[in-house]
């Protein structure tokens, strides 16, 4: 049995027919072909699949596609304002070498943006480290990810994003 689902992803209206058990991340990756959002575990621990749903960060492996009916979803593919300009968080990750293999990166970036906004663009190292509890990285040792987020917070504020 399939169910129709419609939502807005990165500003575009999308729809599809899914099984009731289809997860939001499966809908994004398998139905829409948007493979920037990754799956790194099966217990909602790793955070590689974090997207924004109506402005809040969500592990898209923990949400059914049908639960996102009518929602506004933003994924890593929808962050950069143009082909040659990155979002300040993406820029900060690049400037601070906050990624190596790149697999956890989409979830890290999406979580980090949400973190900065929730803390009203003011963060310290201990807060960033604590807030990253839901995102695992096996390459960077987190050191440069923390640096990148601390650098991005004021950059996001001045860019007004």
């Amino acid at each position, binding site marked *: 049995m399939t169910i129709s689902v419609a939502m807005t992803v990165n500003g575009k209206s999308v729809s599809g027919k899914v099984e009731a058990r289809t997860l939001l991340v499966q809908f994004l990756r398998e139905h829409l072909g948007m493979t920037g959002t990754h799956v790194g575990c*099966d217990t909602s621990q790793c955070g590689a699949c974090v997207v924004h749903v109506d402005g809040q960060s969500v592990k898209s492996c923990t949400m059914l596609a049908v639960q996102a009916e009518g929602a506004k979803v933003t*994924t890593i593919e929808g962050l950069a304002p143009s082909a040659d300009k990155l979002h300040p968080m993406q820029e900060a990750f690049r400037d601070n070498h906050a990624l190596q*293999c790149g697999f956890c990166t989409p979830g890290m970036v999406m979580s980090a943006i949400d973190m900065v906004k929730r803390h009203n663009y003011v963060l310290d190292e201990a807060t960033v480290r604590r807030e990253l509890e839901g995102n695992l990285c096996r390459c960077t*040792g987190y050191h440069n*990810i923390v640096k990148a987020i601390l650098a991005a917070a004021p950059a996001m504020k001045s860019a007004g994003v």
Partner: protein
Amino acid sequence: MTSATGIGARVLRTEDKRFLTGTGRYVDDLPLARATYAYFLRSPHAHAKIKSIDISAAEKSPGVVNIFTGKDLVDAKVGGLICGWVVKDKHGEPHKAPPHPVMAVDTVRYVGDTVAMVVANSYDEARDAAEAIKVDYEVLPANIDLAKAFDKGAPQVHPEAPGNLIYDWEIGVKADVEAAFAKAAHVTKMDIVNNRLIPNAMEPRAAAAEYDKGTGNYTLWSTSQNPHVLRLILSAFVLGIPEHKLRVIAPDVGGGFGSKIFCYADETMVCWAASRVGRPIKWTAERSESFQTDCHGRDHVTHAELALDKEGKFLALKVETIANMGAYLSTFSTAVPTYLYATLLAGQYTTPLIYANVKAAVTHTAPVDAYRGAGRPEATFVIETIVSKAAAELKMDPAELRRKNFIPSTAFPYQTPVALQYDSGNYPPIIDEAMKIADYPGFEARRAEAKARGKLRGIGFSSYIEACGLAPSQVIGQLGGGVGQWESAQIKFNPTGNVQVITGSHSHGQGHETTFAQLVHDRLGVPMDQIEVVHGDTSTTPFGMGTYGSRSLAVGGSAIMKATDKIIAKGKKIAAHLMEADVADVVFENGTFKVAGTDKNVPLAQAVFAAYVPHNYPLAEIEPGMDENAFYDPANFVYPAGTQICEVEIDPDTGIVEVIAHTAVDDFGNIINPMIVEGQVHGGIVQGVGQALFEGAVYDKQTGQLLSGSFMDYTMPRADNFPSFKLGYKVTPCPHNPLGVKGCGEAGAIAAPAAVMNAVHNALAPIGVKHVEMPATPLNVWQSIQGAQRAAAE
């Protein structure tokens, strides 16, 4: 040449943009038309006879395309998976080599052993159908506890390995070591477990395969660190597909740490089944499958003894280790606890006599193979914990005892008693720098301040050496390795002057696309944005050995340098012709060929264009085109070394260990991109601290169930477990490769466990705790504290 983007510059990575914008392309991301999806039914038992497999109900499940079992492979005469390194035991006999069927036929040997493959129109349908397969198992007792693996009456894993023994191997002369011990003023003894780890690259292993009926060609996409080696193994030993009919592509790969070196059952099955199914097949491991079936790392039980004279000079070291191989011998498993472990037991020291005995055991657990550091972390842990223990017993400063025994800088090349000849190094300035950064003189004040807050503060050293950049092929061959260890490079200019740098190594996070481009930019003057680094596809790259053992820059980078030499040599001939000069008078500077003492010059791009449009070109003397290959076989290993200092605070009421500061000073030889090197060190430290404090693969000792089988049960290091790290460098260039580089990928993970555990022991010594095993979890530490308090009360 020095420039903002040349050798030594902190160049931002060219690969980052695609990863940051969600346009990386990992195996699971591939869109394959008409794809089917595979799900593997895994054994729920550690040891059982398969009495029957009934697939009749599963075959009728919706969407099922095919189901395969081990018997299908027997009928198709598919070979078993191989171990590629023959280790000879102490009697000169090759190690026991039990068969490793791709899928179990009549016996399963670990929880996760592959029993059946279901191929269906969707992944969910494949998984649903697998639940309908009925396997009748006769459950048998399992051999799980490594320390008891050789006990009489222990359940036997393979009839081909009586007593569960794969080899009993030794290095060094036992009698000489015993004689030195007899004369020792002091002997320090230690029993330690090097805990078993699960690599957990963030991208789970995945494979996809397609068969072209018209040409008979197979394409396998795999999360591999070494696609050519995977193809060679599949072609020559397992599937029999001729090498030229099998293309293996490792696209973007999300971390490896060793676990993606090996040839696994699942990718083998996906490839084999592609021609039988007649449609592409995709498979991606669930994280639970990764936990159960990725090769695990470490897992040693060791007794070690260090003999010292009355001044604290090391006289001899004696080590007895049991190493776990798991249920089957994985691709390089046999070499890890021998040639990559015992040969490192000299560490940074002049210990004149070393004897090591290693017994490898099979158990009913997942196969164990190379994991970041592979043998060298285990060796470093033995040496660096016993040295610190000796210092504590002798009431000596741990840094002072180390200094007293360091190989002096004047002694290189230095022949150790365990086969390796260290090429270069200068250890005292490294430990000095580390102590300065870590403010070692201020430690006792910090300890007192912590004590006033009710916390136990400790500091620990770890001075590691590692041998990486594997290695002279002849040496590898003499030691039983089944492959060469050179690396390849191709530099292929296009007529318009941009260039492809094609390497046989593979990047899965290490940033080769940037570092290798820096080499070519620095040497040839081609702008960074005109250079593309190509890797990971057997059809487009020359045969190469891939990436492991911190070898890619030392060996692969050296091959690139050789190829640039050939480009310059050819370019000189072309330029000489164009400038009507003698080739002997042509020099190459800053990307331009010049005739010394004149203003005649030909930019490289012009020589390249002339080579492709040879209208005015010495065709009788040189071939057209600008496309050079090079192969580089290293003259020796490279020997990075360094010192890490860890400072911890322990809450005696909860047993929680907090890392307060962690310093690493390394000698990696010359550094091409410091930003990337720092990232490698950070990541390595966290994996090493993870081993010391958090991580441990736990099997139930009766049933062999993997108890730490998910991220909810296996503690992965998280951001809030760490402070920011303090790093420093000292440089002694490697004397035998053209770049003077050593490797940096594994150092962090090699040194950190001993630094952390020495700090933990240093913190707990004042309250009488003698020993804490890794991982030093709150429970372990708290129980050790309680034990010490009980002992003190008695």
